[in-house]
């Protein structure tokens, strides 16, 4: 014990001496060279706050310095699939209108890639680079509140943002986007979109309407081998529907949720535990019901002609919804942090945010979006696009995109895992279920 402390102290001094002259990346490596055999983890432990991000004093990357640089010509933006407005030009090439406007306004190109299939998978891919102090290649990443978010923050693997360079955010962020519990003061993140995890079903395929969680374990209602579950969301979602608030949950409550999930598996209704690809099976008719993300289901229902899909907003007392928020962050080593913050702030203008919402149908973190959509609908009606106007009206009325207070009251955030012990216990309880 004392030996470790001693070494940590030496490491700390060593780093103190080095960090004045070296960039963050060379700090980690330079220290490794100096003290033979010391491990990265002991070095991190030495930095006080549990990671390089915890440094204070002059060594700490100064937000106004990082974000005050001249923005670079390209921003590399990693996001989830189907999470941004799309259109086709005359040649039939897909482009992103809201990003095109950004490029037109600022001259900065955005390389937008939909490479994030799940928080776990994407984080697993960039984690080794971040731990080694290498750039990930991305300027913006989008991570849901939860374990991976907390690890990024605790290790200082994301830059602290400069609050003076996000005027739109400061002016237009909705109350739930501002100052969330998992990131007080939006120090390192700005929400991209939020949403609900809930139950969807195919009205043509189930035996009567699905209203509550237990229906998903009832073969008489949903059939056998035909329910799609969401691996990452199901523990929290089940807890919420069992009347447990994940925020105060511990291993006992987790085991309760696991028990329900085992019961469901044994009922024979489950076809697959998905990371992301449930939409393909949902639209192909391979599933009758399952867990889904509000925007996906509503998108396919309203905009893609799958009127047979229904997203369940439970009656009070009958169940609840899992609320989550996907957050834009700037990973350490990003080449163009200034440009990144410009893009992030860009989406906090009601007009731009509305372009996204009309397409993705999730919870917008920007105020005034609904008004813009209604105005667009009126305009469409005037121009004679009746069908389009109708869809916009439906969007503006969609309970999951613009929830009422009752709906918001049904919704809760998931478990906030912040220690290794919690993480391992959680995995030991839930991995054996999805990976059975």
């Amino acid at each position, binding site marked *: 014990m004392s030996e470790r402390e001693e070494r940590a102290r030496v490491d700390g001094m060593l780093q103190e001496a080095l960090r004045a002259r070296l960039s963050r990346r060379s700090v980690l490596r330079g220290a490794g060279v100096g003290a033979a055999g010391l491990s990265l983890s002991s070095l991190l432990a030495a930095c006080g706050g549990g990671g390089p991000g915890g440094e204070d004093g002059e060594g700490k990357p100064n937000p106004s310095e990082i974000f005050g640089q001249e923005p670079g010509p390209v921003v590399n933006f990693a996001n989830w699939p189907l999470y941004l407005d799309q259109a086709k030009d005359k040649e039939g090439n897909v482009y992103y209108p809201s990003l095109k406007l950004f490029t037109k306004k600022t001259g900065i190109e955005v390389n937008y890639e939909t490479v994030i299939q799940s928080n776990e998978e994407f984080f697993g891919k960039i984690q080794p680079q971040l731990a080694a102090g290498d750039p990930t290649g991305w300027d913006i990443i989008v991570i849901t509140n939860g374990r991976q978010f907390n690890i990024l923050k605790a290790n200082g693997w994301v830059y602290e943002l400069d609050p003076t360079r996000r005027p739109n955010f400061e002016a237009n962020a909705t109350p739930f986007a501002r100052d969330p519990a998992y990131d007080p003061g939006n120090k390192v993140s700005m929400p991209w979109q939020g949403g609900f995890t809930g139950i969807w079903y195919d009205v043509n395929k189930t035996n009567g309407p699905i209203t509550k969680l237990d229906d998903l374990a009832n073969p008489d209602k949903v*059939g056998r081998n035909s329910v799609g579950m969401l691996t990452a969301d199901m523990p929290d979602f089940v807890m919420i529907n069992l009347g447990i608030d994940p925020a105060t949950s511990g291993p006992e409550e987790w085991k309760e949720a696991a028990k329900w999930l085992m019961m469901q598996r044994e009922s024979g209704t489950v076809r697959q535990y998905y990371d992301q690809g449930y939409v393909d099976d949902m639209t192909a*008719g*391979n599933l009758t019901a399952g867990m889904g993300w509000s925007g996906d289901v509503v998108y396919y229902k309203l905009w893609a002609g799958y009127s047979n899909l229904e997203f369940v907003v439970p009656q009070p007392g009958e169940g609840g919804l899992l609320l989550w928020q996907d957050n834009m962050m700037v990973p350490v080593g990003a080449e163009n942090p200034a440009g990144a913050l410009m893009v992030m702030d860009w989406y906090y203008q009601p007009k731009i945010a509305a372009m996204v919402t009309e397409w993705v149908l999730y919870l917008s973190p920007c105020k005034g979006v609904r008004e813009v959509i209604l105005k667009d609908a009126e305009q469409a009606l005037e121009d004679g696009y009746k069908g389009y106007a109708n869809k916009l009206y439906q969007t503006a009325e969609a309970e999951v995109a613009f929830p009422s207070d009752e709906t918001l009251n049904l919704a809760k955030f998931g478990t906030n895992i912040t220690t*290794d012990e919690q993480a391992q216990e959680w995995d030991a309880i839930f991995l054996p279920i999805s990976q*059975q």
Partner: protein
Amino acid sequence: MATGTEERVSAAPARRGAYARHRRTVPYWLTAPAGLYLLVFLVLPMVILVYTSLQSGGLFGGLRFSWAWENYTDGILQYKTQFLRSIVISGIVTVACLLLAYPMTYWIAFYGQRWKSSILLLILVPFFVSFVIRTVQWRFMLGDNGLIFGPLKSLGLLPQGFRVLATPFAVVAGITYNYLPFTALPLYVALERIDKSLVEAAKDLYASKWQAFRRVVWPLSLPGVFAAFLLTFVPATGDYVNAAVLGGPGTRMIGNIIQETFLHSVNYPLAAALSVVLMVAMLILASIYARVLGTEDETLTAAI
């Protein structure tokens, strides 16, 4: 085969004496680059895997090396079902592959005549297409209303609820398909090497066709069967893509767990421990094989 080298050189004229000394170092120079490379990028990684498997901690507090043997006990206890399932599935797959590949390679080797190489190529050509694409196309063909069952269902030949996708059968079928070449090639090499006149001789001695096969061909092809077994069974145990793409609940293999724990939960020590278990099992099997048949045996590797 290489036995002659030394003697022949020493018997050569004196002028070659210098070369002879020189030649003794030649194989080392030839081996060194690849040997070093494999040492650094095959052996060393496996050693580090073991090192990783004995760490404890996680991403919040950092990882420490601590002789954490409990990773092994925890891992094996938590995932014994998946370990067992992997062995059972790849066992079934190996048998299926052998049953499918043996008659096929037998026919090519014995009756293919001058078309042998071309027919063999026809068998291998599909594998020029990415493994992922092939597997995804199977998913597509086996879908509940997919290319195969969709039409059969609409003709009323199959009940509406019939399905193959997301069942263990789909996983077995997928792995069998993907690993068939690893079975077929060693078998082919073994069968092709059999001196066909031996079969003739057996028949001349009034052996029936079946007897000739059982007494002559089958024993001579056994090294190939063993090699095929090893090259199918061992890699198939670690497969996870087929279970992920074609399987459902109750079909996950240990490969899925390793992949999930390594890349998603980012619990390196536990994942490494599971991986080491697989690795050790593989090394034991391989050593037994090497002891019994020798690693130089051509059937194992000649045509891979």
